[in-house]
């Protein structure tokens, strides 16, 4: 039976083919049979993890604690120079210029991306806003959050910073950033389950060396990455502890 690989459903849509190319590369290099299964949303992916169907995952940091502590996953690598950051944005015509001036009852547009949602809510907390006094609107993508802000259907949007930066200049010119997080240590990671644990050192070396040859670099480019960096157990534990402090 092949190993099952899945990718956190919050990956940018432009990179879907990149993950299939990466999977082919990884199978060839490692000699392991790996099947890539993409899930549309976080609940479906979590169900597969719960049922022990997953052996390899590009995981959202929010899920890392469950993967390590409940399912015995181990970290392999993370993309070099990339961290997950969140942005709080509003319509540019809105006169508010500080989170502290937002009022209870506002409509907040979010995606299902759990770490970005968490970081965004922490930034809203400085304005005495929490889940109990806001109206949450769940959108399927960050572009849709921007649309809700432009149409006046939402007052505030919580964006993945990278997704916000990739919006077109026309859209961005009609929006205003209130806060951008600068957390730096929260990131997605490629992780392996117990079935692949013995191959950890081999897989980690393959991935870290990936940017040393032209083909590997091409595959990384299709994912939007420059290189993979190794993640050791303590770095992962530190991030899990950090997420734990934020999730309160």
């Amino acid at each position, binding site marked *: 039976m092949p190993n099952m690989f899945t990718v956190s459903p919050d990956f940018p849509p432009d990179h879907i083919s990149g993950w299939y190319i990466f999977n082919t590369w990884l199978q060839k290099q490692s000699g392991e049979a790996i099947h890539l299964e993409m899930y549309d949303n976080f609940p479906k992916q979590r169900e597969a993890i719960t049922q022990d169907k997953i052996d390899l995952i590009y995981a959202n940091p929010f899920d890392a604690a469950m993967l390590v502590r409940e399912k015995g996953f181990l970290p392999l690598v993370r993309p070099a120079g990339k961290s997950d950051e969140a942005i709080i944005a509003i319509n540019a015509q809105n006169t508010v210029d500080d989170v502290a001036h937002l009022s209870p009852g506002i409509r907040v547009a979010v995606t299902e991306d759990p770490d970005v949602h968490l970081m965004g809510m922490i930034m809203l907390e400085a304005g005495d806003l929490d889940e109990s006094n806001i109206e949450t609107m769940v959108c399927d993508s960050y572009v849709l959050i921007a649309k809700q802000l432009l149409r006046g259907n939402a007052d505030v949007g919580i964006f993945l910073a990278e997704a916000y930066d990739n919006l077109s200049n026309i859209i961005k010119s009609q929006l205003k950033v209130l*806060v951008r997080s600068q*957390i730096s240590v929260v990131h997605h990671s490629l992780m392996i389950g117990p079935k692949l644990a013995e191959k950890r050192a081999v897989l980690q070396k393959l991935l870290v060396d990936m940017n040393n040859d032209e083909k590997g670099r091409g595959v990384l480019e299709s994912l939007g990455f420059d290189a993979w960096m190794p993640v050791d157990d303590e770095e992962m534990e530190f991030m899990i502890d950090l997420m734990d402090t934020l999730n309160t």
Partner: protein
Amino acid sequence: MLYDMKPEDIIGDYQEVTLNLYGGIKRKVLYTQIETPYPDGKLIVSTTDPDGIITHVNQAFIEMSGYTEDELIGAPHSILRHPDMPSVAFKDLWDTVQQGNKWQGFVKNLRKDGGYYWVKATVIPNVRKGKVVGYTSVRRKPSRTKVEECAKLYPTLF
């Protein structure tokens, strides 16, 4: 090591008091009424060993505390202790984390230059292979409402 604060480091008019800190440490602190606002979007992160000695700080910690990394690593976390903070708050913190639980509260911290900054702090024990090897503290921007509530409450707890 924890040294007494020095007048040459202080910016502005200051008051002086000697604090009795955890572990029987006495420290002379000099403090002003100058607040440094918490920077938007940042988290202040530090890790200590089980005795509260700092083992790791991030850049935001360095910037907000006013100390260098070298001055912070190896110092007790109480280097940030402000005289306006009641000791009962820190007793509650230690009691909570030593039981393996998460602690959260609003804290007024003392800077090297005698000024202060408010944070919302969360402290958790770092459990590795079933053993507590230290504590991680993550501070975020507090709301002004909470700061004002605490500024009124804390003087009543001495």
